[in-house]
């Protein structure tokens, strides 16, 4: 998650309009899931991967590494779809186990492969968005889409404080290790418990300090900030619209 955050800030697509990027990613995602077509999913996977790696300048290895995260999870669940327990032998191959068969049919194999491709393509859509758009821009976009203000404010504070808490946790954990807090399993468990307890107390304390600091700057219950919103370039918007139209046509034809 943190590597994704870091990559988003260094992406070459960072300064493109977030609405266009979101429309591109979410539009493709909807078409991909809606069409459930092998060809369309492959097209989307190629385009998303290509754009993320080539235009966004994210290294190929890193991108594959990220794609592998859901892949292993996906592979396991696909196995359950591809293999059936059946009393009759099926048409592709069968392994007899006692009175039943562990069997694969052409249909189930097709289903399984399709599932993998559709899922990977969907993930690639989301990766495109998260690897090219910073959380700050996404929150600005949500606000412009009239998301409830309270929710956006909460997300904004949580996003900021994830990193502060993480720093705190890692400092505490280091100091525990320096005092052999991880010498065996039981000690380590106890250390983690204490870490969590301290973290809770400190975050409560921090939240009250933060509140004081915000009050000092005339906070009145609503967070008002200047958002940096880059207007969409016509070329990008038109490109995305054209691309989505072609995908929809393809989805209808196939």
């Amino acid at each position: 998650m943190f590597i994704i955050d870091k990559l988003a800030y260094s992406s070459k697509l960072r300064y493109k309009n977030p609405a266009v990027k979101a429309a591109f990613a979410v539009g493709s995602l909807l078409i991909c899931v809606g069409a459930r077509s092998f060809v369309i999913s492959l097209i989307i996977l190629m385009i998303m991967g290509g754009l993320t790696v080539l235009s966004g300048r994210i290294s190929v290895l890193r991108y594959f590494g990220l794609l592998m995260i859901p892949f292993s999870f996906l592979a396991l669940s696909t196995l359950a779809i591809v293999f059936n327990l059946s009393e009759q032998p099926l048409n592709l191959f069968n392994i007899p186990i006692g009175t039943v068969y562990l069997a694969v049919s052409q249909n189930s194999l097709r289903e399984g492969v399709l599932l993998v491709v559709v899922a990977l393509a969907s993930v690639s859509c989301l990766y495109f968005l998260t690897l090219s758009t910073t959380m700050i821009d996404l929150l600005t976009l949500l606000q412009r889409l009239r998301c409830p203000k309270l929710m956006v404010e909460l997300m904004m504070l949580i996003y900021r404080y994830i990193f502060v808490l993480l720093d705190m946790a890692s400092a505490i954990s280091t100091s525990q290790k320096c005092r052999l807090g991880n010498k065996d399993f039981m000690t380590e468990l106890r250390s983690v418990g204490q870490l969590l307890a301290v973290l809770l107390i400190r975050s409560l304390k921090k939240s009250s300090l933060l509140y004081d600091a915000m009050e000092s700057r005339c906070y009145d219950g609503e967070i008002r900030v200047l958002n940096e919103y880059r207007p969409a370039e016509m070329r990008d918007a038109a490109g995305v619209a054209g691309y989505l139209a072609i995908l929809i046509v393809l989805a209808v034809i196939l």
Partner: protein
Amino acid sequence: MNDQEKSSGQEAVLCLENICYTYEDGTEALKGVDLNILRGERLAIMGANGSGKSTLFLTLNGIHKPASGRVLFCGGPVDYSRKGLLDLRRKVGIVFQDPDNQLFSASVTQEISFGILNLGVAEAEAQKRVDQVIEELNITAFREKPTHFLSGGQKKRVSIADILVMDPEVIIFDEPAAALDPKHSAMVDEIIDELSAKGITVILSTHDVNRALLWAERIVLLDDGRILSQGTPEEIFTNEALLMRTNLEKPAILKIYESLCDAGILSRQLTLPRSADELQKIKRGEKLSQIKRQY
């Protein structure tokens, strides 16, 4: 206090009258503090951890309402209504010690714009002010970075910008040099000097006696929620009994100066040196007069 009024004749921008403050857990943090803060002055607050410095600061901008006593701003008692507090806080800004307790947004622009938008300034005008402050404090190079990737010194500069953008009359720095490397702490010192030069009242808390001697016009020593003593740096740092009691070290320059005087190398001056440069000047002056005497 009499000295002050005589020497300056300046008006008090903030005035504390017998302030007591007790936290919810029963800790008495302030036990009757009387303090006049003059417009445009450079005031250093010194005292051990837990002596009440931070509580004092939060009393000055109305975050803490004193249990007894009065806070006066520009001569009038502070109005603790919503509107009165907003008025006070736009004029008295605090730069907190740990930027992580102050910066609430991941975006530098969002962060800096928060205060000024709370003052009801229109967005276009606010944008202009934010850009101006970003320029002034040399934040431009990292303004596009998220706050969690900034270094300690960079975060500090953003937290100062947070306050400067609101154009306050009084700025309070709670241990501005804490956890900063020498380069960034010098940078912060420079910013503080510029603010004083502009006529802004600057209050800061510090443990650095050398810095306090060099910078402050007046030092207030806090001890266990009370003002133990106040005066010019020279008055404070030559009072051995006081230094002993508060565990403060005498500034290095004064030590050197005094041992040079004791050894008969320098003769005692009317004004004590505040920095190494000033000590050098005294030394050079003495040499010159020695040479003159020889001829």
